[in-house]
């Protein structure tokens, strides 16, 4: 058995794989936060709750109506995205002119409410969701065993991340979004329906979170509180990367997942804290974040 720094290669690569997967989730979530932040200038504290909602909807649709994974992969983000559009239209819009702190607090209240209601109905013990048969089993790469589902998560997360990046940086819709980030009023003057764009942006960002939730359903334990924990970690990731660039959010997310995986291999007790420690170091030496533009 080959060893690296006193750790069997299979263990190391296994942890690295888990790290990359966690990183894919961090990337998807921080990407959604960055998209929302760009146009609405708010941090969506309900993002974790939307991720949770995506996973819960997947499980509930399967239990109640037998909706399979592939349908859920489209349905859950659509449903949650629609919830997001409603939240933006009926709640966030009403305080759009106020200090951004209020919209942040509003989304926090929404998160508390959603998490609380679902906890009452479904409890905090995890709900089971079996993965589609197609993904059962895995492939032996010689130095490690790669479960098919994990490979799929990494692959599809990268595709979605890249697709979002492409849409924002290279398409006309993306150009509108970026222009809105610069000067929403001017764009309104050019005849673009900015309020609609804002609603859709919030819905899209939230749908990304729900998509991550669907991917998470077969491998993580699905509970109403699954969102709050990962959200705080994602906040640290966002502080590390800075929200200046879409690409930066993706790279930082995956990088932090890997760092977490490595820590789990070499010094397990620090694994839950390591991302926050990285954040402290980044704040000390590069306060704007690795990819940040603001001073």
């Amino acid at each position, binding site marked *: 058995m080959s060893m690296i720094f006193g750790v069997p290669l299979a263990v190391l690569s296994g942890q690295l794989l888990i790290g990359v997967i966690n990183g894919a989730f961090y990337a998807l979530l921080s990407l959604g936060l960055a998209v929302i932040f760009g146009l609405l200038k708010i941090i969506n504290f309900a993002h974790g709750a939307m991720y949770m909602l995506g996973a819960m909807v997947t499980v509930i649709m399967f239990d109640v109506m037998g909706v399979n994974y592939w349908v859920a992969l489209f349905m859950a983000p659509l449903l949650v995205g629609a919830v997001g559009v409603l939240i933006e239209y009926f709640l966030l819009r009403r305080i759009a002119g106020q200090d951004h702190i209020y919209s942040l607090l*509003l989304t926090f209240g929404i998160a508390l409410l959603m998490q*609380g209601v679902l906890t009452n109905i479904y409890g905090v013990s995890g709900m089971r969701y079996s993965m589609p048969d197609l993904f059962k089993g895995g492939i032996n790469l010689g130095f490690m065993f790669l479960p098919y589902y994990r490979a799929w998560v990494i692959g599809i997360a990268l595709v979605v991340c890249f697709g979002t990046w492409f849409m924002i940086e290279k398409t006309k819709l993306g150009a509108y979004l970026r222009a809105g980030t610069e000067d929403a009023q001017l764009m309104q003057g050019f005849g673009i329906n900015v309020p609609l764009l804002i609603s859709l942006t919030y819905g899209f960002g939230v749908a990304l979170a729900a998509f991550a939730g669907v991917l998470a359903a077969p491998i993580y334990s699905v509970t109403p509180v699954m969102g709050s924990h990962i959200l705080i970690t994602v*906040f640290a990731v966002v502080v590390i990367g800075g929200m200046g660039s879409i690409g930066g959010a993706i790279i930082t997310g995956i990088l932090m997942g890997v760092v977490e995986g490595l820590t789990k291999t070499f010094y397990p007790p620090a694994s839950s804290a390591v991302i926050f420690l990285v954040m*402290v170091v980044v*704040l*000390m030496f590069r306060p704007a974040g690795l990819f940040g533009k603001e001073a």
Partner: protein
Amino acid sequence: MSQSFDSTAIHQAILEQQKADGRKKMLLNAVLVLLLVAAPFVLYPVFLMKILCFALFAVAFNLLFGFTGLLSFGHAAFLATGGYTTGYLLTNLSWLSTELGIMAGTGVATLLGLAFALLSIRRQGIYFAMVTLALAQLVFFFFVQSEFTGGEDGMHGIPRGHLLGMIDLSNNFNMYYFVLAVFLGCYLLVQRIVSSPYGQVLKSIKQNEPRAVSLGYNVNRYKVLAFVISAALAGLAGSMKSVVFQLASLNDAHWHMSGEVILMTLVGGMGTLLGPVVGATFVVNVEYHLSQGALRDWVDPILGGIFILVVLAFRSGFVGELQKFFKKNLG
């Protein structure tokens, strides 16, 4: 336009008005203090102490949020650090008198506050909230994994001990008046800070930070000091709370607690002196009464709903709305 104003007369009138307002405020405060002194004869002292501890926590938070405009999402860290430190010391050092244990807890929370402040001050606005939340989570992990906190079980049986080695604090009345005295002292301190020149600079930072910078103020130093004072008072609240309940638990360190203190401040009226006290009283009562009734499982979602309502329709809070009302109808 040949009309001229007698400026001294106007000035005089304003001063008179201020004096009258000051007298009214003094009268109101005196009545409130008398009520607080009499309260334990009518209501259960431990419940009152819970309210006072959370009121102090909210007053501390409000100094930073309401007056300086910095939204910390990590104040639970100071509450818990104060509580655990005091609890640990009082449990393990039997010779330590209670006030020293509380001072030590406050001291450690103050140092932690300094560390938080120096790091989080490097980012602004929304990032500030995220950084404080993440730092508080780090502190939470530390408490979860440390042996001395008792992990998920919490730290039980903290002795209340004697104040100055003489007054027996296991008597609820003695304990209550001690907590009340500390609370009133801190309240007066915050009142003094807010009305001092230093407090005026804090308010100006909240209203227009670039302007404060352009006037030559070293804004970051003002912010750090405000953060440290706020953390110290929050730590003091946590220290007293652990003595009152003889318990320090992970609940105090959880992000949920950081959210709760925001809600207290917001409901009562951010940026007002009395607001956080009213808000803490309200939230503690809501939680208590809900937990006694048929809705006991619905405390969290109801708090979330209150959060949403307050932000949408009631941003000045109880005290703020009352002030507006009086200004409109009596001013």
